[in-house]
């Protein structure tokens, strides 16, 4: 990288093209090269529901020397691989940012069809011979994306080698001539980039030193879930493919058997949850992964898991709904379903990580909790978190317990076994089938301590209390952040309460607001059920105004919090199918801060 050790790096690129242009692929190469160079990367791809040949693809990559929490609202560079799709996004490039495009497309075009006519006055054009270089080096126009990447790398004086390595790796299963011709395309464009006078003021500095004793990796939220599952000792996985959760099963299909585990693609989501609960009952660490429509099918069996107190882990990556909804768009609208879905008082644990590293931790801790509290645990992701890339620092030591079950004590082994015995912590010792002296009855019916059906009012009350109160222990579960406050301490003018992937945007907005002199704090809530009521109440007490931004129409988290806390707050709800804009949150913070000032 260029020698500017003191420069803080914070650039965001946006690759835009149609399906089949290699837009996501080139974004992937770029972010991997940046991560390889030691930068922090946060990236998110948007693609159409169609498989190939139609629709817009966008890959946004933010490269920073220090940790970033969300994508920026405006990109520094736009790379157009298809002008008709990229033109609407020109306005997302900041002043004095650059726009790269094919300066010699193959066919004649009418006025307005070329992106160069849409640049705003402050933006800088970089015409690149994408098609020509691709033709010359590979004999076709398919490598336009690699040409654009090579030009970009040359323009900003990036080292070639990480790109070479990743391109070789990408084509390693194909004819070597494809790899070589793509490298030639990259290098030819790289030289063109080097010789192009750079007019913008974008600098790549030096990455921050990484934490010693940790492993730095770039991965998506779903990949982090997979990693968390494997580190936590997942033994069986049952699933049915659904966007945006499918890649969890895809990756596990490769990795889980290598660790001695089993994976089965079931005929539907109902079978998947049923098999997961069955495996959990048998004592295996078991999980499934789905999205909102799949979770809707699973809630009946979830009730069985709650009633029978069987551990299971369900990963739900939310997308736009209801029904089939918007499969490739992000949303946070399954909170009600995850927390309340199902018949009866079916309390369960719901975790919602806010970033990729959190996805890893929540995934692993979900197994501990499911075992410890003998209940289904839902880990609520969303498309934005599932698909976005971040460089994360994973601990070198496996942070998860291999077995968290509460087992019979030595003394208890000598007495008749009561599977659902009432205990101080409301968690009963658990046995697995085949364990000597552990025979018991399990049913979806309300039951007594032996597990035998019993619908007497007193028993139903006591068992309901048991199932409810045992989960409160999860609020103190070790090694996981249940909630956390950021920003100014003590009394503040504006507090922002958030959950899930939107919390990154909340943090970015809060940091800007602080820079503007606004007294503010943000709190993320990772455990949505049971809700950490006391810290949330304290946060409410500390903040003169409270803002709750979330990507759903109803304000589902606000409803959840509002049902427990009477203090008024402000909702900020958006359903654009894409991550919330930092600017929208910031505007609300400013408005509320002004409101506090004027009231004072």
């Amino acid at each position, binding site marked *: 990288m260029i020698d500017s050790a003191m420069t803080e790096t914070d650039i965001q690129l946006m690759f835009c093209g149609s399906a089949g242009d290699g837009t996501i692929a080139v974004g992937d190469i770029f972010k991997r090269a940046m991560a390889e160079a030691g930068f922090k990367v946060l990236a998110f791809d948007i693609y159409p529901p169609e498989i190939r040949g139609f629709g817009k693809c966008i890959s946004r990559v933010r490269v920073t020397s220090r940790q970033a929490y969300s994508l920026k609202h405006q990109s520094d560079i736009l790379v157009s691989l298809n002008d008709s799709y990229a033109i609407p996004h020109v306005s997302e490039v900041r*002043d*004095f940012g650059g726009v790269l495009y*094919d*300066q*010699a*497309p193959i*066919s*004649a*075009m*009418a*006025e307005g*069809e*070329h992106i*160069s*006519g849409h*640049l*705003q*006055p*402050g933006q*800088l*054009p*970089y*015409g690149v011979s994408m098609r020509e270089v691709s033709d010359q080096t590979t004999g076709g126009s398919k490598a336009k994306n690699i040409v654009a990447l090579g030009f970009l790398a040359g323009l900003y004086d990036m080292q070639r080698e990480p790109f070479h390595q990743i391109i070789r790796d990408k084509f390693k299963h194909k004819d070597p001539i494809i790899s070589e011709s793509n490298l030639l395309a990259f290098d030819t464009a790289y030289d063109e980039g080097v010789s192009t*006078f750079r*007019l913008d*003021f974008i600098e790549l500095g030096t990455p921050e030193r990484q934490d010693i004793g940790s492993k730095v990796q770039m991965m998506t939220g779903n990949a982090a879930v997979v990693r968390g599952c494997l580190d936590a000792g997942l033994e069986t996985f049952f699933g049915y493919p659904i966007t945006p959760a499918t890649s969890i099963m895809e990756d596990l299909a490769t990795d889980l058997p290598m660790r001695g585990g089993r994976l089965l693609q079931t005929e539907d989501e109902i079978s998947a949850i049923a098999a997961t609960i069955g495996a959990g009952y048998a004592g295996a660490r078991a999980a499934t992964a789905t999205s909102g429509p799949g979770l809707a099918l699973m809630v009946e069996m979830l009730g069985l898991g709650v009633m029978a107190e069987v551990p299971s882990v369900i990963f739900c990556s939310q997308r736009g709904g209801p029904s089939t909804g918007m499969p490739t768009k992000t949303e946070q609208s399954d909170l009600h379903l995850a927390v309340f879905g199902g018949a009866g008082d079916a309390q369960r644990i719901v975790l919602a990580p806010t970033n990729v590293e959190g996805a890893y931790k929540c995934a692993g801790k979900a197994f501990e909790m499911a075992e410890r509290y003998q209940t289904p645990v839902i880990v609520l992701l969303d498309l934005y978190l599932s698909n976005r890339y971040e460089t994360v620092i994973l601990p070198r030591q496996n942070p998860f317990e291999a077995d968290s079950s509460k087992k019979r004590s030595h003394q208890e082994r000598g007495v008749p076994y009561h599977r659902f015995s009432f205990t101080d912590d409301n968690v009963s010792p658990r046995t697995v089938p085949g364990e000597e002296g552990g025979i018991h009855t399990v049913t979806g019916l309300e039951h007594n301590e032996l597990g035998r059906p019993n619908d007497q009012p007193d028993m139903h009350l006591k068992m309901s209390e048991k199932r409810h109160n045992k989960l409160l222990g999860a609020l103190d579960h070790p090694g996981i952040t249940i909630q956390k406050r950021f920003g100014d301490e003590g009394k503040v003018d504006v507090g922002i309460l958030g959950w899930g992937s939107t919390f990154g945007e909340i943090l970015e907005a809060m940091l800007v607001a602080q820079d503007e002199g606004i007294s503010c704090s943000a709190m993320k809530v990772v455990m949505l059920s049971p809700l950490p009521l006391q810290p949330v109440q304290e946060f409410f007490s500390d903040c003169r105004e409270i803002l709750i931004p979330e990507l759903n129409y109803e304000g589902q988290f606000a409803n959840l919090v509002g049902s427990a806390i009477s203090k008024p707050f402000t909702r900020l709800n958006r359903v654009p199918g894409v991550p919330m804009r930092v600017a929208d949150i910031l505007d609300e913070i400013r408005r509320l801060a002004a409101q506090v000032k004027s009231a004072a």
Partner: protein
Amino acid sequence: MTEHYVIIGNGVAGNEAACHLRQRDPESRITIITAGRLLFYSRYELPRLFHEDCDWRDFLVNPVEYYVENRINVRRNSFVTHVDAQRKSINLAHKESISYSQLLVASGGATNLPAELSDFAPLLNRFNLYTAACQVRDILPKKGKVVMLGGDVLGLDLARNLINEGYQVILVATEQTFWPHRVDPDERKLLLGALTDMGVEVIENAKIETIQEGAPGMSARHILFDDGCEIFADVVMPFFGLLPAADFMMGSGVDFERGLLVGTNLRTTDPSIWAAGDVCQIWSPEENQYRFYYGWQNVKKMGEIAARNMTGDDIHWETATDHKMYIDENRQIVSPYWEHD
């Protein structure tokens, strides 16, 4: 129907015209097409690069917001390949065609390089664009040596700035020295003397045999003259005046001599095409010939006249008096062409 005024060229004439067109026809579309990548900047200010920490934003004549507020679309990095006067359309190198109601050609002049020096072009540094100026700044060592070939007014402006900053300047004088001023032999002798007094080393009557890259560790350029003399320099720059940059008008049907031929109203032989600035030759009734006029003020006036006539006026270019180069009381040469807004 909304008029679409297209202006080829992003210099003084084009931007002055755009400004007047917007004032006189608020509803119209205005598009400026330029091969450059930057908005309109002052090339006269480029020598500041040698004594200030500045970049292209500091040279912008209008702020970015000006173009938004005035709805002037500046299409940069766009190369015009052909003008079809019959269809009233322009073809761009990236295969896009743009139609116009009225067209103003204000594409200015390109650096003139005599044919005998064309072989050495890769070894010569220009100063006509911001990017070229930055390259000179970047490769020229502190107190380094610059050889100027020719020495038109743009070159001499740079020369005096370089001298003031401690650089060495050698001028290889030719008949284009002082261009576009018309200088008689007596004046020329006085002016060259003044240049010497200013610190410029002047070489006259020298014919360049070859220009080569310097040996490693030595000065970057090596100039050999036909009399056997030689000069080592860090940068060699040609300043031989400008040639109209309007090759794309070939085949358009518009009359073209050395530049686009226009009447005193700046209209070409096509009723929808106008020209202004260094690209056009204006009919001079007094001299009974077409001729060029240079300098910021002249070119700016042309832009205004063209715009007004494009929007219905009938104003005519009045023959300007030729500006004289002179020597001031401090023995400094001064060209009125250096004056700008």
